[in-house]
């Protein structure tokens, strides 16, 4: 049974990569948007661009994982092809995890490109294990957030609209551009209930080679967010097929 489920997760992710992710709209939304955003800040203040790299990577994670994730489930629900997956001898959570894995793998490809090119261009030497400890759970967190928002609504455009709200709130409040500690106390409280704060914090630590214990703490919190997003997403998807 578990082998069937693992096989299903793997092949669904692989199929989604071929059919949705490695297509120009996903690639452009996943990479071009964060790069353009950061470039705007760089042009305003070219000094200290290294400071923006963790934020750039965090935004790439956020946008690349959610770009298609918030579309594919409702899109397939509409076409009836999600039912085809559910007719296979695998569980419904496995189908959803396959979808989430697809988003996470695509995000990983995008993040790898952005991280390597930033590190080479600016001569940065991040702590690779710490980087992995933050990037991998973050990819799953935001991919499952996309899946959750997708199953919350019925239409593809509704999911995209709904997703823009947390995306942009997180860009401003989670330390991508301004450090959380420099924000008013009230906004800091908001920042700490958003997962991107922990991604940015972990990435900053990975790039500055400071305390790795705190990176573990960020990883744990991110894993908590993953559970917080994926469980209701599974429940909501079950509801659609009651």
């Amino acid at each position: 049974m578990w082998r069937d489920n693992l096989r299903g997760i793997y092949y669904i992710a692989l199929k989604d990569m071929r059919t949705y992710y490695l297509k120009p709209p996903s690639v452009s939304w996943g990479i071009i948007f964060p790069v353009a955003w950061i470039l705007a800040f760089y042009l305003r203040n070219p000094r200290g661009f290294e400071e923006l790299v963790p934020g750039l990577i965090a935004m790439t994670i956020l946008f690349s994982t959610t770009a298609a994730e918030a579309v594919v489930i409702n899109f397939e629900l509409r076409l009836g092809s999600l039912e085809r997956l559910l007719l296979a001898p695998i569980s419904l959570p496995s189908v959803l995890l396959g979808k989430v894995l697809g988003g996470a793998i695509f995000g990983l490809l995008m993040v790898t490109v952005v991280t390597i090119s930033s590190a080479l261009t600016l001569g940065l030497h991040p702590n690779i294990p710490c980087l992995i400890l933050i990037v991998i759970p973050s990819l799953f967190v935001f991919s499952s957030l996309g899946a959750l928002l997708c199953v919350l609504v019925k239409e593809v455009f509704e999911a995209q609209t709904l997703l823009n709200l947390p995306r942009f709130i997180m860009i401003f409040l989670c330390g991508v551009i301004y450090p959380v500690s420099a924000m008013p106390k009230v906004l800091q409280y908001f920042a700490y209930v958003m997962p991107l704060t922990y991604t940015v914090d972990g990435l900053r630590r990975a790039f500055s080679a400071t305390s790795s214990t705190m990176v573990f703490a960020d990883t744990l919190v991110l894993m908590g967010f993953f559970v917080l997003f994926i469980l209701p997403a599974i429940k909501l998807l079950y509801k659609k097929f009651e």
Partner: protein
Amino acid sequence: MGNDLVIQASGLTKFYGELLAVDHINFEVKRGEIFGLLGPNGAGKTTTIRMLTGLSKPTEGKASVLGFDVGSEIVKIKRHIGVVPEISNLYDELSAFDNLMFMAQLYGVPRSQRRKRAEELLKIFGLYERKDSPFRALSRGMKRALTIAAGMIHNPKILFLDEPTVGLDVVAARSLRNLIANLRQQGMTIFLTTHYLKEADLLCDRVAIMVKGRIIKTGSPVSLKAEVEKESVIELSFDRDISELLEDLSNRFPGVKVVAVEPNKVRIYGGIPANIYDNVFRFAKNKGIEIQSVNSIKPTLEDAFIKITGLSPTIMAIEKGGRHNVAR
């Protein structure tokens, strides 16, 4: 449970909110037969298939497929069944061959057999020449055939077909029916739903007639027709629409069923033919309408359906979305 019964449903019921879609239905399907669920759109046929294949939870009742309970052992069931939904729902971006390969991967067909099985099915369904064409580029008939092929990639013991020929032209529908008949000859059990009476008559070993969520009669097309054959069936054509006069005409024949098959055409089931002719001619004279033709006809499954359900065959011709189907 007898080994010959591969599907059993007992009191199977489904509510969607307040709407009762399937109402305590009972039926059995034998190994190797083509069993048809026949009824108009909205009768609950698709909901029944969805409950049997794990896409929808029954509100009440029990059902088993191949001895496994649909409520608690659905994954075991899915290993042995193939499902072809009403909508051809493969992936537009993938080629015919890649769609089959993906299904083979999903169903755990051994790696060494995947390619061979996919190619074999493409040949059986006459799609081998189009194996590299994206699904979206195939004709409606080809899409349907490929969707059935996808449902068979793992050699299922039972194939569920939901309205297999809906939306196909006459030639494609005929070719698909031949394919379905061939599958039965290979020993596969087929559970299909249809609202085409002719299709049920041609393909099914047994049919269950379903109306408004309930199964009202089960039997072979031959036995259902035999029920009507005992009685006379007279078809009358008039020179104009007699819909408004139908009740008046029915009242002249107590205990006999009068059904409009077209606005200007009725069929009269049962009664003594001599009395019927006499009464009908008097009725036409009184109303000032002209009888264009009178035929004594050999009953078809359509006549059995009309007799059993009291529904007009025009209801069966209504497709989803309210379109009328042309004669197939």
